[in-house]
């Protein structure tokens, strides 16, 4: 029966696996910042984990401001 068919993300474990993979990728990229040499031009780029922090904080600020705009 097509109505009873189970799809990939119907199983919460699969969602957890995807999220776990994302966390692992983030952890690796975070760690690589201290291992690989980055060619930097801007002063802020020299700060450790500048890009991960900028991406995370930038998106959180973006969403919170957008939410505030919708309320306004």
């Amino acid at each position, binding site marked *: 029966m097509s109505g009873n068919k189970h799809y990939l993300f119907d199983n919460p474990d699969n969602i957890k696996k995807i999220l776990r993979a994302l966390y692992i990728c983030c952890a690796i990229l975070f760690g690589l910042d201290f291992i*690989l040499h*980055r060619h930097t031009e801007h002063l802020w780029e020299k700060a450790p984990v500048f890009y*991960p922090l900028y991406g*995370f904080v930038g*998106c959180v600020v973006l*969403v919170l401001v957008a*939410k505030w*705009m919708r309320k306004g």
Partner: protein
Amino acid sequence: MPAGVYWQFEFLNFELVLFRADKLSTLFGYIFHIAALLAFIYSLHERDTLQYTAGMLYIGSALGAVFAGDLLTLFIFWELLAVSSVFLIWARKSRRAYVAGLRYFTFHILSGLLLLAGIVIHSRMVGSFEFTYIGLQQPYTWLIFLAFGIKSAFPFVHNWLTDAYPESTPVGTVFLSAFTTKVAIYALARSFPGTELLVYIGAAMTCFPIFFAVIENDLRRVLAYSLINQLGFMVVGIGIGTALAINGAVAHAFNDVIFKGLLFMAMGAVLHMTGRVNGSELGGLYKTMPKTTALCIVGAASISAFPLFSGFVSKSMVMSAALDSGYDGIWLMLLFASAGVFHHAGIKIPYFAFFAHDAGIRAGEPPGNMLTAMFIAATLCVLVGVFPQALYRLLPYDTVYSPYDTTHVLTQLQLLFFSALAFVWLNLMRLYPPELASVNLDVEWLYRRVLPRLSQRCLNLIWRLDAGLRRSLQRGWQKASERIATLQQSPGILGQDGSTSGTVTWVTVLLAAYLFLSFI
């Protein structure tokens, strides 16, 4: 066709060049042909002659504009772009599409009028119609700059895009996304490279739309905001004006036509199959539309500038050029916009359409021609991402640039993965704004809400003044009539019988007065 100018002739002592092929125009010629092919494959299932005719005229106008060697030819194709494209909006045959089309047309006619005025003054000042560098040194060149700016969706004059594109048909939006704005970008690259103002305008264009895209429910409107965001990168590149920056800008225009076309095609396929395109009404479509989902994800990865996808190889050129030229603040804005575009176009579009909550829709895959067009676009996204030198060879300037070094790849991946992490975190914390069935207005609020209300109030005031004036005039007239009637009655001066001689005397006096006045 080899580079050079063709079809030249004299017109009113001015030399017109109908066709000029150089590296810049040829690159846009290539991408417009690719876009035309994709759009026609995508629309093969349609039986609507109007859309085919308008689409053909629209493509022809865009090609005519980018190969125009003089400003008069550009103007003619500029106007034809507006006239032909509005029918792609009206082809939806709904009231909303009709009024959105009218607003769209108004903006583009205004752009055409500004361009014409600018061309007339410019040609008189320089004695030529040549379509080449213009710059902002003379006051009149602002007219041409503004005309290009309207079509490039500069802030405050961008609403024609977010208003009208999502109201078009699934096929119409695919056509629209490719041509108008890219013709304007071409025109800016041709006439205003290195204009510093463009750097700031472009930076604003990259940032402001992403806030509206986050809260927008109509997923094609999200893509329209995202289109302005991508145009911003191109405008910044043109404004910086170095060889690397201009190359980055036009390379990004090339890539944007394909990946934005792919995303509009994917959302068009969803609209075609489900009749809906609002995030609040969709979800779970990956179950029955897995191919469309996969192709949409390729488009999302490309626009987000993931390494090995097309956006990465062009966006990074503009960002490197910004840093090289000392625009540190602008670079930070572009970086923020890069994270933001991944957030709303890279994650939001596929997530809310194909995953998120299961809306219970079990629509099948779209027709084969739609899938084929999307597959070709997705393949091009990957090919350009993997073999960027093939695109770089077509660019106007010979520069050496390699996007695939450790720094670029690592920093871009860090930016994107931690943006994704922010999305997950905001969802887990229930901070992410849910998709709501709402209409969000930005600057258009001024002319769709404030201006009508203001004009209504002004008109009400005028009506009241008019009514008061009429009433007082009527009262005055009534009083005067009553007074005259009183005077005409027997005791009144006009009611008295006069003698014939007296009357003749008065007539003589009057005639004498007239005679006297005629000599003054």
